[in-house]
């Protein structure tokens, strides 16, 4: 957009066809004085405005984005702006964690007859944008590198799986295996520290079944692949919530599942243990006890405190009670889940907006776009049809720029809004250790704030917050433009 006088800012406006665009027209016909910084994109309804439109504009250099639609209860399509209101309010709360000033984005309602109001809205918003510095260029920011090793006490102390749990589980699976095509569990991979998913089909497979704090993979990820087949699955509390999400979305059928629920007192962060162990040739022994974790490599025994090597995503877990189960093994801890801020999110909370953007500039640079974050996410159900790779519409360029890499994380996070059950597989599986869980954890926090403590996967009958609306929202203030 050329700006001859260099005094304009670049502001993008998404206006609904039926009200706000008409309002802008009315203001024009009335020859009302308006600032010229705004570039208008007409959309059928404010409900058409994907929050990603806004983020994309802001990441690519827009100084401000304004969305305007029909007044609530006055939508041309009855309910479009009710959905929009939830999404846009969520976005407003999401932008700060990216390091984008939420003042750069506003949404409001202007009807076709309100030419004067439109004049007021545009003038006010443009003034506000002019009061800010021009938007920073993400790619040109000085990266900020920070240590991401903050320790937080786990909400529940770590405990190893009770010694008899595996035997009991095997017995249960043995009983049910004849009526199932497959049971999803874990087995040991290349050594005792590295567990891998395991697909049990026959009784002989039971010998290889493994169960300890190194078994991190979320098996729920595989369920949609087995649609139509009778499948058994071993789940812990967080995984049972992911399973509920898939049921809510109709991607799996309850009657096809046999859920074996097991207690969980935290999983180990294997990557950090690998770091401590350094290069080794043979792992000879692994003993996991409540207070000590002993690993023998190349003839030398090393001892660690398991509490200090818990996965960050497990630290805030209050209860391991399964939401759904057919067979419950062991005893579970019930508990009210009061939020604990994940350490990677606490780190970002302590930074100002510019620092956050510089932080993401630094960490996202090494992303190799392997998409293991997406492909290991149990909620990423588009699988082979992700918009990251689609050419039509063309959301993402194949260019390996830090903007494209960061934008993908925003796509992933926003598509998880109200659906993420916080398993943390995205971050655990990132080959280059980017703390992407922070974005999901923040969104979960915002969802709970805006929608009366809603937590994904707690109730199979619940409607996810972004798929519903209330005419009068409890926690969303109508934004007035006095």
């Amino acid at each position, binding site marked *: 957009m050329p700006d001859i006088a260099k005094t304009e800012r670049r502001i993008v406006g998404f206006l609904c066809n039926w009200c706000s665009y008409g309002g802008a027209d009315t203001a024009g016909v009335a020859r009302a004085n308006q600032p010229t910084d705004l570039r208008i994109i007409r959309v059928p309804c404010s409900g058409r405005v994907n929050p990603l439109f806004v983020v994309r504009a802001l990441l690519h250099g827009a100084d401000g984005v304004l969305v305007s639609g029909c007044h609530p209860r006055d939508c041309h399509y009855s309910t479009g702006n009710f959905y929009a209101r939830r999404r846009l309010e969520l976005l407003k709360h999401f932008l700060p964690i990216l390091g984008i000033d939420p003042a750069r984005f506003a949404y409001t309602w202007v009807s076709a007859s309100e030419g004067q109001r439109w004049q007021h809205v545009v003038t006010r918003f443009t003034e506000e944008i002019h009061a800010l510095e021009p938007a920073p260029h993400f790619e040109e920011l000085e990266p900020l590198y920070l240590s991401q090793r903050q320790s937080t006490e786990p909400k529940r102390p770590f405990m190893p799986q009770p010694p008899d749990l595996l035997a009991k589980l095997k017995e249960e699976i043995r009983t049910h295996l004849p009526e199932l095509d497959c049971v999803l569990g874990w087995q040991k991979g290349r050594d005792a520290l590295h567990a891998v998913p395991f697909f049990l089909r026959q009784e002989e497979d039971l010998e290889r079944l493994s169960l300890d704090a190194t078994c991190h993979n979320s098996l729920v990820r595989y369920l949609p692949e087995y649609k139509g087949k009778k499948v058994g699955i071993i789940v812990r509390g967080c995984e049972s919530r992911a399973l509920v999400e898939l049921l809510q979305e109709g991607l799996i059928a309850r009657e096809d599942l046999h859920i074996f629920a097991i207690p969980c007192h935290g999983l180990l962060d294997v990557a950090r243990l690998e770091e401590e162990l350094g290069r080794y040739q043979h792992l000879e022994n692994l003993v996991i006890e409540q207070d000590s974790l002993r690993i023998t490599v190349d003839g030398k025994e090393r001892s660690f405190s398991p509490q200090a090597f818990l996965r960050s995503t497990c630290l805030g877990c209050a209860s391991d009670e399964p939401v759904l189960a057919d067979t419950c093994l062991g005893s579970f801890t019930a508990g009210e889940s009061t939020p604990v801020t994940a350490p990677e999110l606490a780190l970002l909370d302590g930074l100002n907006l510019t620092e956050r953007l510089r932080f993401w500039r630094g960490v996202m640079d090494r992303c190799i776009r392997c998409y293991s974050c997406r492909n290991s996410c149990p909620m990423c159900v588009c699988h082979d049809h992700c918009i990251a790779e689609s050419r039509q519409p063309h959301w993402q360029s194949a260019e390996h720029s830090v903007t494209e890499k960061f934008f993908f994380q925003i796509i992933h996070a926003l598509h998880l809004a109200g659906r993420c059950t916080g398993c943390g597989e995205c971050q655990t*599986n990132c080959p280059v250790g980017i703390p992407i869980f922070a974005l999901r954890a923040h969104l979960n926090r915002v969802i709970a704030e805006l929608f009366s403590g809603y937590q994904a996967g707690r109730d199979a009958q619940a409607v996810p917050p972004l798929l519903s609306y209330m005419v009068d929202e409890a926690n969303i203030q109508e934004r007035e433009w006095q």
Partner: protein
Amino acid sequence: MSNDRFLAKDALGDFLCHCQGLGYTVYSPQKQEGVRESVVFAPWQKGCEIQLAKATVSPKHLLLPQSEVLFRFRHEKGEEGKSSAVHLEDTSQQAQPTLLFAARPCDARGFTMVDRPYLQGLYADPYYAKRREGLCVLTLCCNSGCESCFCHWTGGGPSSPEGSDILMTDIAEGLVLQAITEKGRKLLAQSDLPEAGAASDQATELRRKAWQSLDKAPDLTEAPHKLKELADNLDFWTEQSRACLSCGACTYVCPTCYCFSISDERRFSGMEEGVRLRSWDTCMARHFTEEASGHNPRALKAQRLQNRISHKYAGYPENWGSFSCSGCGRCVTHCPVGIDIRHIVLAAIALPDTQAKEARS
């Protein structure tokens, strides 16, 4: 090893500065803060900490960038807004002298495996050739094996020289530098590093010990034949790929996976200007082989895993006479679900011939 030079640990920075003075852009392994340790090859500047750790991601991006512009294009609008002419702008650049410091022997051998199709085939790739010409590789020998790497299975070893210009051995107080190629000899001659003298013997001894530390490698001579037999054995590959998530971690951390995609990118759709990009692509993704008709010859992840393993251990050897896996083990350590290429190749070899054939139906 009489011409070897000695580089003291406290003189590493000075040596790299000296190389910069010769016109090289220096890349070295650098630790980056993260939720897990990550070491990447990044441009080195005076003051950067010097890391000797094995990198998380291979240095292949120095020859095959994650994305590169092949040319720029601009459509000229004619009558009725139709495109009447396309202007192309060549964006290829001259070779930039680049020095890769502290790659590992598996990384350097990886370069030789990419060289063959990119330089020695019917058509040499001009973009690749220029970067290759400018690259000087200083490789650090490994002083021991490791649980996930297996260079000696595939014809390499902890001190194999293929692909390196200089081979370095870490003898605690410093590095012993041995020139392998003319380029390496020239670089050492231009430096004021002292002769290694007795340190050379120490280095030789360390290298010998490193070789001795390795577990016995299995015989993989049957692998190409067996994998060819298994090409259509969907049961075998379904079993091996059950846990596969179809992400691209294995291919993108791999020093020898060289497949790419080509796309025309405009900043915003409808713009008349844009670039033709070549970017990394992964054969593990469904869209890699998706045809315009919608048909996909490798629609199943089993077929895609078959392709990746067989390319490295059967297809490539048929064309070029060696495996295209340098045994760096990165795909093993970074697979989110622990798929282990070693186990798959061994499972294929272990399958009796008759069974491999019978199952083809």
